[in-house]
């Protein structure tokens, strides 16, 4: 510790105990918190993925909606010169391909990136502290706790939500979506070679259309909760939320150790 610090570090204080016990804060994070009120969490590939993914999801929901329930018929030109549904599908497929590549990129970064880039992809189910803090977070959202705890990355409840909605939800949409794309691409295409088994397994692909459509609503529900909670916690919790996904830095509003 440099003597030039404006802080007076308390070596005997162990900050963010819960966050450490649930597997969230790393030793480096703690060192950082000792000397400044913020800690760097999300590296640029994670942030880039977040916003690219968000953009893709918005495009996919918009175009997907109008693929299932097309716009009113338009007769401004002969069919040859008109490509309304075609562009709608193009937008859907293009966004889906970008999202798929980005998702694989995100998985790659979970392997090579820092500790917090991995949180999306697993649940520490054997950690008793982690379960206890899920209960605590639920109580916080039920207004039964006066103030929330500090976390560097996701709090345990957020980690559960992220895992189910994003890791599983996105995987489900990517898998079913590519199977549907393979239908049009037909046997022999790359997508059909990779995803054709799903077409054969479900038999009637109308089922695939329906579950892919339900998946869209799953993602919409996630968006409602995610945006609400991010803004609410930005205001009401003891740490930054929205700006963290822009700058990558988590700022704490107070200097209490827990």
């Amino acid at each position, binding site marked *: 510790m440099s003597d030039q610090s404006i802080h007076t570090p308390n070596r005997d204080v162990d900050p963010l105990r819960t966050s450490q016990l649930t597997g969230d804060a790393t030793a480096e994070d703690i060192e950082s918190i000792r000397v400044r009120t913020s800690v760097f969490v999300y590296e640029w590939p994670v942030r880039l993925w977040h916003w690219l993914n968000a953009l893709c999801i918005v495009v996919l929901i918009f175009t997907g909606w109008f693929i299932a329930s097309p716009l009113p*018929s338009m007769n401004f030109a002969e069919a040859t010169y*008109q490509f309304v549904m075609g562009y709608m599908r193009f937008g859907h497929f293009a966004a889906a391909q970008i999202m798929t590549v980005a998702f694989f990129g995100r998985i790659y970064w979970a392997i090579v990136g820092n500790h917090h880039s991995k949180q999306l992809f697993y649940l520490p189910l054997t950690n008793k502290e982690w379960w206890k803090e899920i209960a605590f977070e639920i109580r916080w*959202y039920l*207004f039964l706790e006066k103030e929330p705890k500090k976390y560097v990355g996701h709090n345990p409840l957020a980690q559960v939500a992220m895992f189910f909605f994003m890791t599983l939800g996105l995987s489900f949409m990517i898998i079913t979506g590519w199977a549907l794309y393979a239908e049009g691409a*037909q046997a022999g295409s790359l997508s059909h070679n990779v995803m054709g088994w799903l077409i054969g397994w479900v038999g009637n692909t*109308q089922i695939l259309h329906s579950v892919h459509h*339900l998946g869209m*609503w799953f993602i919409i529900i996630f968006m409602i909760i995610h945006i*609400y909670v991010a803004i609410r916690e930005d205001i009401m919790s003891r740490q930054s939320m929205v700006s963290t996904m822009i700058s990558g830095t988590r700022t704490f509003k107070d200097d209490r150790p827990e």
Partner: protein
Amino acid sequence: MSQIETFYEVMRKQGITRRSFMKYCSLTASALGLGPSFVPQIAHAMETKPRTPVIWVNGLECTCCSESFIRGAHPLAKDVVLSMISLDYSETLMAAAGHHAEAALEETIEKYKGNYILAVEGNPPLNEDGMFCIVGGKPFVEQLKHAAKHAKAVISWGACASYGCVQAAKPNPTQATPVHKVITDKPIIKVPGCPPIAEVMTGVITYMLTFDRLPELDRQGRPAMFYGQRIHDKCYRRPHFDAGQFVETWDDENARKGYCLYKMGCKGPTTYNACSTVRWNEGVSFPIQSGHGCIGCSEDGFWDQGSFYDRVTDLTQFGIEKNADQIGTAAAGVVGAGVAAHAAISALKAAQRKTQDKKEEA
């Protein structure tokens, strides 16, 4: 029953001379890229190889497969039945009835063990020991198992034999079961459709006779040459789909102009069949050409996929008649209302705390 005729004998009967027959064998050899030494071998095969015996059994069904089959034009059904195959048992088409018919079945099975093709129209109901479908005094499932035991291959004609069709629709009281779930030890070719296209049926048989092997099957066990592509991808109305021009109601101007039937619940995008290429009745028309959407009759469980007239269909899996949008809107509505209420309480709590803090300060 007489010995089954060879291809040569049948050709001679149809007025083809020995000279023409030898020419045909030479042509076949050159077409296959074989040398002149193969010509006698081909001729020998044609002279000695008996036509493939076919046993055609009928379970729970409506005979629309047979009706479709006898309308085959390329090749003509009569050529298939009288020249190409030896249709030894078919309740609908055979002259014999009663004990004679059943005797013919036994004789064919006995005589051509391991060499005949079993064609199944309809499916066996398994509930109540199969008593819902009786053939010759016995449950059909017994006849099916008996006939399949020594068959070379099994053809599942139509949606009934392939997937179960209407009699297997929920709740399926007779427990009507597709053939491949009863016969598990034989190669099975599914030729689904309600009924299948006549040319597809005769085409499958012709392929098996010509090449003496099963046609290439897709993942669901259907001949890839007929079921490899969706109706939607070969539909002549596809340009209207891409343009976003749809029939909005059955009697509107768009319907008269022949726009896409997607919004009317057409199942073309999820149906694999040859209707939009081969068409029906010697290529005269097919459902979409006649102004009605595809109902997806050649797909697994097409009766249980909600309305024929909805694009986003009801999800009966949820035990209620609601589609994905209705379920999604309800769920998102509940979550949205919950979020709004939560936000309101959060704001009130925060305000309350602020007042308390002020009081404490004072």
